[in-house]
């Protein structure tokens, strides 16, 4: 087995994680197009300059995307705002009440309204399906802190979204 990530492995990781990573980066940058660029950059860098197999490739990818998004924010030197016109989620099912265009927009706004770290934790756990142990690695925080911030995030999301429904 090779000591570094091969192109095939990187492409497999992309197929598995890219969608959730783009939502994760969108939630930092407020812009889905920029988020996609950032995710592409991270994966292309992995192909161009292979790294040795990370202990946890999911944690590695989320950390890399998080750092790249932070650098982007720093270099653009502008305040980050939510791009309202860009969808983060697919809108396909009208029968489930929340799963419609208005629901998608409400969800985006509700996520955007959360404190940054809670927002990141919520996305990593719900759509990235990362455990709190992995999330704690990405953010460099305690596992219990990650879990408790997630619960706060969830409570706030529910509050905001139910208020919007009324």
């Amino acid at each position: 087995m090779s000591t570094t990530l091969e192109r095939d492995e990187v492409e497999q990781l992309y197929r598995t994680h890219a969608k959730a990573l783009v939502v994760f980066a969108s939630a930092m940058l407020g812009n889905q197009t920029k988020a996609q660029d950032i995710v592409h950059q991270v994966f292309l860098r992995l192909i161009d300059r292979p790294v040795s197999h990370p202990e946890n490739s999911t944690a590695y990818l989320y950390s890399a995307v998080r750092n790249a998004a932070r650098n982007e924010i720093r270099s653009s030197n502008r305040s980050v705002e939510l791009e309202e016109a860009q969808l983060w989620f697919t809108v396909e099912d009208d029968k489930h009440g929340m799963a419609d265009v208005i629901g998608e927009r409400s969800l985006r706004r509700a996520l955007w309204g959360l404190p940054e770290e809670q927002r990141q934790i919520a996305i990593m756990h719900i759509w990235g399906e990362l455990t709190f142990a992995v999330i704690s690695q990405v953010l460099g925080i305690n596992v219990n802190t990650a879990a408790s911030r997630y619960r706060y995030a969830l409570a706030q999301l529910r509050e905001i979204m139910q208020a919007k429904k009324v």
Partner: protein
Amino acid sequence: MPIHDDDLQFEQELRRFTPREVAPLPARRSVPRWWPAVIAAGLLLVFGSGLLWRQHRGDEHVPFSKKTTFSTLTLGQSQAALLKGPSLDAAIDELERESRLKDKKPVQGSQTAFKVLGRDEL
């Protein structure tokens, strides 16, 4: 904070929103726009420093006397050329021709205009 059933149910509701499809990974990394400028600057730097280095090396190896042409022109010669020639232009042409001839074989024992001027006898 314990996880309630409500939380789990709400989590499931949120998961019904699936992240949008993303564009496939590009085959190659796009070359940044500033890249050609960096290459051009690098080439300029290499050629420029090479040129300077050659010039510098050349200066070190050529003796001072070879770099100067006025050393072969004496006051007497210039005076004679001025008296002999029909005009100033003709005198200059004549001096230039003589100087070229002298450059081919080294002058020995003649006084240069430089030395004469340096003696404070004028």
